């Protein structure tokens, strides 16, 4: 009897906590959404339920700001960065996971060091280098390095490749496949979730990047990606809160959509960075 009452109590307590947490995590998003639908005047005063609804704010934000240009820049940045990363990092990760060679341990440690290194450490020489190459003021200093491997992606892909049983690569080698054929025909089809996860992570990282665009594009507005431009709305452009919030919501749409489309591989990927091994 007491046991049942206690478990009923625990049930209520658990569900109350679930609900409270859900409200806490969602409330700021609800406030943003409500504000994005207010008039400019109301958005500037004490927060309350919208007195009038202004869904046209979402059209206005595209009229008043070069939002499509910003989105285009973000899309170019994130897409090219991801494509370049795959070309350079998949073979590197495969070599680290499945080919035995001297120095592979050391190389793996170097990959981890690169991955954890704060970007500020190397900013000065790299900025000087890109200035000499005449590429500051564009997003190329952020896109091109992916052609030469991205440390986090190499790390993540390697962790994925390691989960594929060795027998498959060994069988392919027995059948006389070279390493390239083994990678393309055996590993890649099996590593699709890993490739999807690493692509999504890099796409997100590029889409959300603020420090990189600040460093390289802040003086050339036509190169601004949306994450950097967003930070300028309230400041340089004195955009009202309602439109700022509408733009903020619009900027979230692509990453949230992509997340819902690929939630499973995404979560699996995060887990693998910290837990696996």
């Amino acid at each position, binding site marked *: 009897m007491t046991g049942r009452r206690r478990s009923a109590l625990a049930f209520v307590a658990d569900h109350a906590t679930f609900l409270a947490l859900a409200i806490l995590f969602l409330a700021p998003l609800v406030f943003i959404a409500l504000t994005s639908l207010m008039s400019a005047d109301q958005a*500037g005063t*004490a927060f309350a339920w919208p007195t009038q609804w202004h869904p046209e704010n979402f059209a206005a934000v595209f009229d008043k700001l070069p939002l499509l240009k910003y989105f285009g820049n973000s899309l170019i940045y994130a897409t090219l960065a991801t494509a370049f990363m795959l070309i350079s990092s998949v073979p590197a990760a495969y070599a680290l996971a499945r080919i035995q060679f001297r120095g*592979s341990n050391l190389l793996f440690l170097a990959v981890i060091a690169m991955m954890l*290194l704060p970007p500020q450490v190397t900013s000065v020489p790299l900025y000087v280098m890109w200035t000499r190459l005449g590429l500051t003021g564009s997003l190329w200093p952020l896109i091109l390095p992916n052609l030469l491997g991205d440390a986090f992606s190499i790390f993540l892909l390697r962790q994925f490749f390691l989960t594929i049983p060795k027998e498959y690569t060994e069988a392919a080698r027995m059948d006389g496949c070279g390493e390239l054929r083994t990678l393309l025909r055996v590993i890649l089809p099996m590593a699709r979730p890993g490739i999807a996860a690493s692509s999504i992570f890099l796409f997100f990282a590029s889409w959300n990047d603020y420090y990189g665009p600040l460093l390289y594009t802040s003086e050339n507005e036509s190169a601004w990606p949306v994450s950097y431009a967003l930070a300028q709305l309230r400041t340089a452009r004195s955009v009202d809160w309602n439109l700022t919030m509408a733009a903020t919501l619009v900027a979230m749409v692509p990453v949230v959509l992509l997340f819902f489309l690929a939630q499973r591989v995404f979560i699996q990927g995060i887990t693998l960075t910290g837990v*696996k091994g």
Partner: protein
Amino acid sequence: MAAAPVRPGAGRSPSVAGQPATEGATAHLSRSRRRRRELVALAFLAPALLGMLVFFVFPLVMTVYYSFTAFDLSNPPRFNGLANWRYLFTGDPLIGTAAMNTLWFVAIMVPVRIVGALAVAWMLTRARRASGLLRTVYYLPALIPPVASTIAFVFVLNPGTGPVNQLLEAVGIDPPGWFTDPAWSKPALALLGLWVLGDVMVIMLASLLDVPTEQYEAAELDGANGWQRFVYVTIPHMAPILLFALITGVIGALRYFTEPAVASATAQGRAAVGAGTSTLLGWPGNSTLTYGQLLYSKAFGANLLGYGSAMAVLLFVVTAALMAVLLRRSRAFTPEVAS
């Protein structure tokens, strides 16, 4: 899973074992095979190796060199001995503030985020139905671009008009100034960090679900209550993950930039953070000025590339020490994974 993990570096092909008769020939074959394999590995790794040289080794060497020079973008570096270093340790009036602010985030925000993430993950393990939906809801804020979540948070915590302070006033609490008050700006950023704890939470959740249930059952038979089971079964099992979260969190705090920079500019409502206007970082009253932001503003705002490089070298030394601990202790990062 593989029966006997072949250690890289041991280098012998398995076919050699147990064939003493043809040892010479096989050894020769395996040597040439090894050479071939190393060439293939080299080919696969060539772009990444070049990337390591260009984007890691070269800038590190150059940063050390620049740290002993006076250097701006219009003039070539001029050797000036230890001047940057002397200024760093004895002259710069802001570096103490920036270091203390960064230390605040390391000492308070990082543990708060880890404990918060662990608590939310633990709650999720108690969910029977809809645990996937709850996980998504709790994770959602972590997905939002940091610039967007920061702007949203500045709005939500806006002292005069924001919904949070409206609510606090309604229940009779004198609301703080959050991002506009030097005493509350860092706690406000920590709250933002809690809102986006999903990234850490997902890792914690995976590790929590990984604890063998027999261990809980055994502990329960021994009369351990819920809290004791958590302390004596869960925590030891999660030790590597907690260490991983702690060290990546600390390194994250050392590079902490976007959130304080955007919060400072947005709360101020002024043009900020563009080149040359980086004096507006750290508002209010340098309370959100982190080491990474000071480095940026010295190097690229004030065009003191030599001094910025000295700050970068110091940042690297601290990060490298933390990485060494992580690499030594964390299983996720050991090269030889017995998958």
